[in-house]
């Protein structure tokens, strides 16, 4: 084609600032997605304060605490991997990303055991024991499974996202000059962390 003229402000150019802005906007929608659940949580906790307290004793503060530490650490490692790539240390960057993924797995394994224990006690919505609980406690467990479940889903998505970035760093399409994708996966991962920062006190630390 004899097409010679191109606009300087073309939508087909690589634009680091655009992709970062896009990622932030996406994070806002994620925040409000969880926001809706926090809203439900607030209302039901207000209406059932005693029951929420009672039900929260079933959760294990230590497991939740360890998971918090794991997520915070992984947040640090992914942030460091960006620094590493910015400084040109590709290998360190990849290593730090693998550590992040390992942390994600550890988080999920612990979650698995926590959920497993609840299942055994029949606390999953619809189970027999669940149905015999007082109303407020049922709401608590319902919210617990819904919110931590959705969060766990985000952990998985974030992990996969980072895995993709690792591939791209290794083959060089994400590099010292063009690292938007890594930066965005980092932002996403921090969001996962942010949400957990609130889930932890709201479910585990009721007193």
């Amino acid at each position, binding site marked *: 084609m004899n097409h010679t003229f191109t606009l300087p402000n073309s939508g087909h150019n690589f634009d680091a600032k655009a992709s970062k802005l896009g990622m932030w906007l996406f994070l806002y929608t994620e925040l409000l997605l969880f926001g809706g659940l926090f809203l439900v949580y607030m*209302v039901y906790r207000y209406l059932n304060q005693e029951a929420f307290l009672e039900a929260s004793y079933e959760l294990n*503060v230590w497991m939740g605490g360890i998971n918090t530490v794991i997520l915070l650490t992984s*947040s640090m490692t992914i942030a460091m991997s960006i620094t590493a790539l910015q*400084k040109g240390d590709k290998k360190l960057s990849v290593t730090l990303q693998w550590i992040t993924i390992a942390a994600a797995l550890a988080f999920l394994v612990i979650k698995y055991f926590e959920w497993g224990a609840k299942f055994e006690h029949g606390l999953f919505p619809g189970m027999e024991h669940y149905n015999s609980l007082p109303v407020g406690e049922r709401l608590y467990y319902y919210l617990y499974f819904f919110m931590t479940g959705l969060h766990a889903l985000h952990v998985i998505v974030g992990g996969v996202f980072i895995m993709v970035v690792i591939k791209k760093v290794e083959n060089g399409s994400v590099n010292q000059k063009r690292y938007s994708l890594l930066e965005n996966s980092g932002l996403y991962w921090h969001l996962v962390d942010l949400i957990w920062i609130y889930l932890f006190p709201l479910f585990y630390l009721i*007193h």
Partner: protein
Amino acid sequence: MDNTNHQEHISSYAELFGTWAALILLTFLTVFISVFGGDLHTLTVAMALFIASVKAAVVGFYFMHLKYDKKMYRLMMTVVLSLFTFFLFMVILDYLTR
């Protein structure tokens, strides 16, 4: 346009580590208050949420780079959060005054 990332600010490893340490400290603090803090009732909820918000701000400013990014990002975040706070406020107001 902007064909490469030229970032003015690169977070140092030390800064990131320091951020992490602060977060861990705050986590211990919040657990400590809730487990050993005795019967503070609503105060513990407020404390827990306050600490969580401090942690969230630390993550946002340092890990997510808000401190060093353009002002626009902080502005947008503020708008989004105030909006959400208003949602919470109006809904709980309806329940509190029923």
